[in-house]
């Protein structure tokens, strides 16, 4: 008998995902992934400076509905503010000027350059907002499970999950190697040259150790029937309603139709 595990009782794992009850949390991860893909296509393929900002406003509204606006803003602003500053600065000063420049504090700025910077900032903001909403509402385990349920090959879901989990392991090992080398008198602080010199005794054991581990890991996977052909099963099952599959198709059709109309209409 199939047992459906609701997301609220799925164990939480170290990721950026927050706990919540809004619709963004309840959607199947594959549905969310499709909607993010649509948002990225719309943000980057629709010409003009305002469509990305319109999309961004819609995403901010969706975040507010799911009580995620503050969390989203905190993460987004950290990335977007310095990026926007450089975009406006560089394109304002160096973009090709077709019309009369805009003079600000005695500096001539290109109107076209500022509009381009506005468009790019909007596109990046919309893309980041969509991606962050996905990350904030989707535990990695759910994503892997959903991908697996939709027929993604086990090797691909394995690579995603293992990469996410093994990175902290590698960081821990690098820290341990660093400590060991320092304990043996190696200086890792100080001038740039000294730091560069210290890099090799840190990186080499890390890389070689990881390569040795790969062999054992491969055996461990083989021993647990990872490559055995035939149908697979899953301990958990995520809800995957037909309505969400329809939503995905509809979103894809509307996105592609909008792009076609805008470009060739």
């Amino acid at each position, binding site marked *: *008998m*199939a*047992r459906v595990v609701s997301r609220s009782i799925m*164990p939480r*794992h*170290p990721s950026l995902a927050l706990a919540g009850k809004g619709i963004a949390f309840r959607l199947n991860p594959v549905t969310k992934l499709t909607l993010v893909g649509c948002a990225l296509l719309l943000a980057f393929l629709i010409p003009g400076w305002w469509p990305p900002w319109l999309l961004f406003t819609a995403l901010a509204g969706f975040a507010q509905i799911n009580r995620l606006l503050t969390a989203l803003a905190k993460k987004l602003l950290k990335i977007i503010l310095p990026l926007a500053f450089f975009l406006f600065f560089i394109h304002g000063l160096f973009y090709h000027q077709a019309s009369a420049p805009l003079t600000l504090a005695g500096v001539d700025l290109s109107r076209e350059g500022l509009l381009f910077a506005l468009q790019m900032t909007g596109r990046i903001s919309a893309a980041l907002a969509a991606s962050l909403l996905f990350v904030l509402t989707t535990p*990695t*385990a759910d994503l*892997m499970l959903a991908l697996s349920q939709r027929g993604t090959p*086990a090797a691909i*879901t*394995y690579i*995603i*999950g*293992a990469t996410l*989990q*093994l990175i*902290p*392991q590698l960081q821990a090992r690098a820290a341990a190697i660093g400590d060991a080398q320092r304990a043996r008198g190696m200086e890792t602080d100080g001038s740039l040259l000294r730091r560069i010199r210290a890099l090799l005794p840190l990186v080499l054991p890390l890389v070689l150790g990881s390569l040795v*581990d790969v062999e*054992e*890991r*491969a*055996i*461990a*996977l*083989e*021993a*647990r*029937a*990872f*490559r*055995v*052909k*035939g*149908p*697979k*099963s*899953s*301990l*958990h*099952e995520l809800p995957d309603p037909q309505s969400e599959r329809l939503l995905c198709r509809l979103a894809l059709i509307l996105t592609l139709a909008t792009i076609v109309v805008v470009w060739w209409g």
Partner: protein
Amino acid sequence: MSPSAPPLDAHPHPAIEVVDLHFAYPHSPTAALEGISLSVAKGSFIAVLGANSSGKSTLCHALTGFIPHFYRGDFAGRVRIGGLDTTTRSLDELVQVASLVFQNPLNQISGAKFTVREEIAFGLENLGVPRAEMTRRITEVMDLVGITDLADRSPFALSGGQQQLLALAAMLVLRPQIFVLDEATSALDSAGSRRIFSLLHQLSRTGMTVVLAERKLEEIAVHCDRVLVLDQGRIILDGPPRQVLASPRLEQCHVGRTRYSRVAERALTFGGWPVDRSLPVGFQEAVAGFLHLGSKR
């Protein structure tokens, strides 16, 4: 594990049959295994002893099919596990008969699962075991190994000993006919080791064949049915623990002796051990020997 396992004498073929096995790793001037011949009855609990580089790990890999399928090299002879010839059958088939657990528990964690329960399920998912059956088996094996309270913890957040227990559970849940452990209790404390030895003994009594490369001689003396000693890739001793662990040849091949043998040997020098008794290998024999001497005085 299954209480309904058929009696041992109902199986005409040995669980493991090795005939004149020779194996040398590529670019190695010497053979890792040479002239190994071995027949292991179903439901046996066998310990493999030997110094470093004596061939224990290589034998473990050969008994699970990873040699010659994973480790290529100069292979000769025949190995049959559960009636399957390891040279002609695919590794996919062989891993469903024999399971291998090795020393470093961290490398046995799949890395793709986020809780202990999910990690144990990994192999069952790969074999397509139905969810209800999977849940039942996971609960059973966690209870058996004693990690039920860790079920929802991340495998990476466990101690080395707990990870070792997880590695054991993750293989035991597959219910292999042959269970091979290559120094798999090294990360466990003495109580944990005792518990695992006792569990393996219990599993062997239900029909699972257990082969264990180990160094814990005291536990081997108590729980195993048979002990093999390897030296430079060859079997130099093969017999019941009582006989093999008392052999002076163990010292020669750097395996050592049980602490009871060492104590009795020391006692013998000042008349503290009866001269007419052979050295003990286990605790009870040692106690009996000392009591016997005490009663004579």
